[in-house]
């Protein structure tokens, strides 16, 4: 049987890679993908604990997190599209003023 700490270690590694990606990346779409990576790492933790505690509540939580991630991706990409229409660039380093 696979021990719980192995699943937690995988989740930690994926989450850390997501954090590093958010900090490093300059393309705003890839930045969003790294945020989704972090959400998936948390999903792995939730399902692993749900299995090792024998409770289905963790899987229910993952269901809700999936729905929230879908909604957030839709709205975030809409914001990116309207940002791109105004600035013609996808570089986050150039979006450093609140005024256009």
């Amino acid at each position: 049987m696979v021990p719980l700490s192995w699943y937690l270690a995988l989740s930690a590694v994926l989450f850390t890679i997501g954090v590093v990606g958010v900090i490093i990346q300059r393309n705003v779409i890839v930045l969003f993908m790294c945020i989704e990576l972090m959400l998936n790492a948390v999903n792995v933790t939730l399902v692993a604990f749900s299995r090792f505690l024998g409770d289905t509540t963790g899987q229910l939580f993952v269901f809700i997190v999936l729905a929230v991630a879908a909604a957030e991706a839709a709205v975030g990409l809409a914001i990116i599209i309207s940002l791109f229409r105004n600035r013609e660039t996808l570089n986050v380093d150039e979006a450093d003023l609140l005024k256009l």
Partner: protein
Amino acid sequence: MEPIQLIFLGLAALAVVAAFNVILQRNPIYSAIGLIVVLCCLAALFVTLYAQFIAAIQIIVYAGAIMVLFVFVIMLLNVREEESKTDRQKYLKWLAAPLFLALLGEVFAVLKTVGNPSASPNPPGTVESIADKMFTSYLLPFEATSVLILMAIVGAMLLARRNTKEDIERIEEALAAQPIEAPEVPRSADEKKEEVAA
């Protein structure tokens, strides 16, 4: 080493390699493909954790809808490979790898304190068991999620539409009413083309 542990190690290694692909590739389409590989590996891991419903939903919703949306947006905005612009501080990128390892070391130091619990009875990962909880004790999060999705639909449609003629007239009126000199209204490239054609 039991076979299930070998399967876990193979899937986990593939997921980590694909995750590195997501952050290190220059072309955003390759990053999207890497993320899809991560999602499929995690879905397989969910099956080993007796969560077969969540695995199916992950493939259908995450890899099948959200990532397709990402790929559509990348193709719509015609994102090319990243041109290397002038980095203001070139030495900082050499700090990335050691700091990443430091962060990983800290997380693992916390993980060492987690004991391995004895195996409880496997939770049924079927649709019935999740629905049994979702529609009784957790009804409020379910309804709130549906309201959230409705808000997301309306918000995405509003944010992504172009400025209509009424919007532009209203913006110009508001800017003309200000005492300071008004800057040009930011129009999208399509409106500029329409103006030139008109």
